[in-house]
């Protein structure tokens, strides 16, 4: 029973929370920079407004351009049903481990890059090539930090990783756990287009990555992409939060446990979002040529995490 509930309840909750999360980061950032800022619920209005507008599509665009928003949104929703956000089913689903979740999200990124190239606009191509560079560099880090987690749990399944961490709280203090968390957090910043790698709040043509790819979209398409990206941020943060600090997650479909799960998820996501906001206020965007340095540093951290769990047994 609970495994089907996961499929229905979690994506709905995630869809509801995602724009609020993005809005919260923006609002907190504005407050930290002594601006008043738009209220945290502003993204909801934006998405509703975009859904009411007409979509303009370039003549040269092929079906890929039209299909991409659905792929981006669809993969994000599917992943939101896989990751432990508020509920971990006791009997795990057949499909859906960490690898599936991460690579489904990458599928969305891949299509976004294709769509950027599709219309033939110079910005789209530029953004797509940059995005592919960044993704290619984050790839080994993602795989390694997953392996670090999976090695200590003996499985790549979400429920087993979570169950293992709850069973052995001392392991959560171990370097394998912490270093993998830091590595995954850096990857999250890179993959979701946050500050040291990409600036999410400008359309400055020389520096943008994500915004350059979605520049041609308008109306409902743009709404889907914005919502999908917000969902991607939420999913990555939920992965980082709940795989490493799983306490508070619901294990059964009881209303009380679900309420605690939801509350703890909101608290954890809020804390991580606040971290992002503080970070984005403190650091400047890296030059594109220095991004590989950051990503190779996170790669080394992930490698250390694997080392300390693998070679020490």
């Amino acid at each position, binding site marked *: 029973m609970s495994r089907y509930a996961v499929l229905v309840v979690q994506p709905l909750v995630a869809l509801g929370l995602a724009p609020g999360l993005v809005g919260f980061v923006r609002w907190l950032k504005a407050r930290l920079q002594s601006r008043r800022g738009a209220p945290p619920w502003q993204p909801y209005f934006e998405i509703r407004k975009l859904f009411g507008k007409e979509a303009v599509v370039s003549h040269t665009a092929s079906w890929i351009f039209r299909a991409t928003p659905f792929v981006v949104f669809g993969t994000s929703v599917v992943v939101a049903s896989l990751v432990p956000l508020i509920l971990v089913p006791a009997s795990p689903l057949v499909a859906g481990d960490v690898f599936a979740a991460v690579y489904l999200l990458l599928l969305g990124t891949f299509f976004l890059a294709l769509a950027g190239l599709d219309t033939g606009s110079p910005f789209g191509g530029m953004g797509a090539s940059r995005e592919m560079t960044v993704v290619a560099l984050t790839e080994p880090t993602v795989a390694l930090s997953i392996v670090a987690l999976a090695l200590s749990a003996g499985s790549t399944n979400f429920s087993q990783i979570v169950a293992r961490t709850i069973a052995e709280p*001392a*392991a959560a*203090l*171990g*370097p394998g756990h*912490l*270093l993998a968390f830091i590595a995954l957090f850096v990857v999250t910043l890179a993959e979701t287009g946050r500050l040291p790698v990409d600036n999410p709040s400008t359309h400055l043509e020389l520096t943008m990555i994500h915004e350059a790819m979605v520049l041609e979209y308008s109306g409902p398409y743009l709404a889907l992409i914005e919502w999908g990206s917000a969902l991607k941020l939420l999913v990555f943060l939920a992965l980082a939060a709940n795989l490493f600090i799983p306490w508070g997650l619901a294990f059964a479909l009881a209303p009380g446990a679900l309420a605690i799960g939801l509350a703890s998820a909101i608290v954890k996501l809020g804390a991580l979002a606040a971290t992002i906001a503080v970070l984005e206020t403190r650091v400047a965007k890296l030059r594109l040529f220095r991004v*590989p*340095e950051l990503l*190779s*540093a996170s*790669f*080394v*951290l992930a*490698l*250390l995490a694997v*080392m*300390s769990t693998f*070679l*020490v047994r």
Partner: protein
Amino acid sequence: MGGAFSQLVMLGSSGMLVTALIVLWRKGVPAYITAYRWQSWLLAALTATVGYYGDGQLYWVAGLLLGLKGVAIPALLRTMQRRFGTEREAAPYVNTEVSLLIASVLVVFAYLLGRPWMAVTQLPTRQGLPLAMSVLFVSLFIIVSRKKAITQVIGFLMLENAIALLAVVGTFGVPFLVEFGVFLDALMGFLVMQIFIYHIHDTFDTLDVDALARLRH
């Protein structure tokens, strides 16, 4: 004892390794000095932890570490750095990405080297041993791969920290007197190097050790 203790030791040692990696990653001497200070604080905390579970004498060592390596030497480094201005580490012999990757290879090597050792010992701190070796190798790599004398000195100080860490996790700390002697040695070494660096800077107007290969006239 047991689980939490060895986790804490492992955490502290990994932290020290990360601070050594920061030197490879960042550019600019102030960041290096901060990394060194963090490393010394971590070493002091680790020594105190081992002292809590083992020999109480280690508290003295930890206090001494904190005072000398955590406060005094970083302050001296800062005065040194202020005197030379914010000269950047222009171009190390190996660029940042490659040196990080080399560092990761060194860490793997240290783990492989530590394997038979760890199979023999039954110490609860044995998981810190390969990490201490890694810090040792990485700081050696810092010394050979950076061009500026001040960075090399920081690499040397980190090497000293690594040896102290090895002593703490490998033997639960050596006798206080020996430790004290090693401290004084390190301090003397540092002061001598400081004088050297001042002279290098006065003579060559730079801290780039490549300049030493050229003849002065």
